[in-house]
């Protein structure tokens, strides 16, 4: 371990060096000048500093203050060499972060005992912070694993829903990427954007509960059939709600709210404006745009231009204007996403 000794009195310096070098595994690094001692300490990682109080240029208290300003040296033990009677100096040194004192003239027994104590303290602090770092690393890995499994569950659940849905897997991926894109452009937090990407694919999971003769009916739904169709929002919410996972909580909200309209004319609750959660307003734009530009058994795909005009015309009616603007602002990325996830 490196013991730095800063003292302008040569006999003290040499005596302390001789004593430190008798301790196993310790080497003394000597500075007669406090300024060069400080420079060295700020650039290196000493294990213990022993510093005299009265020195030209920088005295011991100023020295300690400068060392403590370095965040790495917050816990570094520092011993100050003072005479017994210098009480006010001792108080000031304690205030600046000295751990203990060495009396002048130096006494071999006292010196070795204090230095050993300080080095033992240093070792246990290092062991502790090393252990803390290892634990933090393990926790991080475990959490990442949990997240991965959670995502996998979500993907599999979305895949189950796809089996019953005439809409394609590519639609789900495009819609999720559009949703993430809108959230990013709106300046929402990074982890919310990420979660949107993973949660949005489940927006139609409630269609698992829609009877086949209605879900797969080729023609137009009757009013009664449409009422049943609308229930997929609430069914999706029931499947996903009350999860402890953030992604599933968000997915539940998206499932419930993605058919709400900004002017209050949507379903299931007819919420309007900001009463519709942000994720619902975002999902509405992403879902409708992709539905319009995709071919379905009952309709042809709209052109990109027609679809964007539709968004613009329904800005503030069906859609939150902020979400529409965010989406149209990122038009070239929208085109990239369409290319990446084509129905092929």
């Amino acid at each position, binding site marked *: 371990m490196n013991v730095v000794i800063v003292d*302008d*009195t*040569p*006999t*003290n*310096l*040499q*005596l302390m060096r*001789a*004593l430190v070098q008798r301790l196993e595994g310790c080497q003394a690094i000597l500075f007669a000048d406090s300024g060069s001692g400080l420079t060295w300490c700020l650039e290196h990682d000493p294990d213990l500093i022993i510093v005299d109080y*009265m*020195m*030209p240029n920088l005295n011991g208290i100023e020295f300690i203050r400068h060392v403590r300003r370095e965040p790495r040296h917050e816990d570094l033990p520092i011993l100050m060499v003072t005479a017994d009677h210098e009480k006010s100096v001792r108080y000031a040194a304690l205030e600046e972060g000295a751990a203990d004192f060495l009396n*002048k*003239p*130096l*006494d*071999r*027994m006292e010196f070795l005992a204090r230095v050993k104590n300080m080095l033992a303290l240093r070792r246990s602090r290092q062991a502790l912070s090393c252990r803390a770092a290892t634990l933090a690393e393990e926790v991080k890995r475990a959490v990442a694993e949990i997240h991965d499994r959670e995502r996998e569950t979500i993907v599999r659940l979305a895949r189950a829903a796809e089996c019953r849905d005439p809409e394609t897997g590519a639609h789900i991926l495009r819609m999720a990427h559009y949703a993430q894109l809108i959230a990013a452009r709106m300046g929402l937090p990074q982890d919310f954007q990420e979660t949107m990407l993973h949660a949005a694919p489940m927006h139609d999971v409630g269609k698992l509960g829609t009877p086949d003769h209605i879900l797969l009916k080729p023609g137009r739904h009757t009013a009664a059939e449409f009422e049943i169709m609308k229930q997929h929002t609430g069914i999706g919410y029931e499947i996903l709600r009350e999860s402890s996972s953030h992604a599933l909580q968000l997915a539940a909200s998206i499932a419930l709210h993605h058919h709400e309209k900004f002017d209050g004319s949507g379903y299931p609750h007819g919420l309007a404006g900001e009463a519709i959660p942000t994720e619902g307003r975002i999902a509405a734009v992403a879902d409708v745009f992709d539905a319009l530009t995709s071919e379905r058994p009952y309709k042809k795909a709209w052109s990109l231009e027609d679809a964007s005009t539709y968004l613009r015309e329904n800005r503030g009616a069906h859609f939150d204007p902020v979400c529409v603007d965010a989406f149209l602002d990122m038009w070239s990325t929208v085109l990239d996403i369409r290319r990446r996830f084509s129905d092929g």
Partner: protein
Amino acid sequence: MSNEPLFDRRALLDNLGEDVELMQVMAQTFVDDTPRLISELRDALARGDAPDAVRASHSVKGSAANFGAAPLIGVVGAMEQACRAGNLATASGSLTEAERLITALVVELRQELHAP
């Protein structure tokens, strides 16, 4: 001058846990460095530089204290006090005595270096 011993060999060895080798390390350092310290003190006094004179006398006193060199501690301790009070003339008056004591102490400590 009195017959007071120049340094307290007993107290020194006590402090060093009877370690003669350590005592020799310190004696050698004193012999090598103290003449330089006292000339720094002399220069500071000649320049009228009170802060430097305080530090130099403090440093000589610290070295002397390691050896329990009571006569030298007495003289340079008083010089330090005088310098702190800005009384450099008083301090300068003791300079010759301090130098005499240091020279004598150096002679004695040299003998320790040749001790078995």
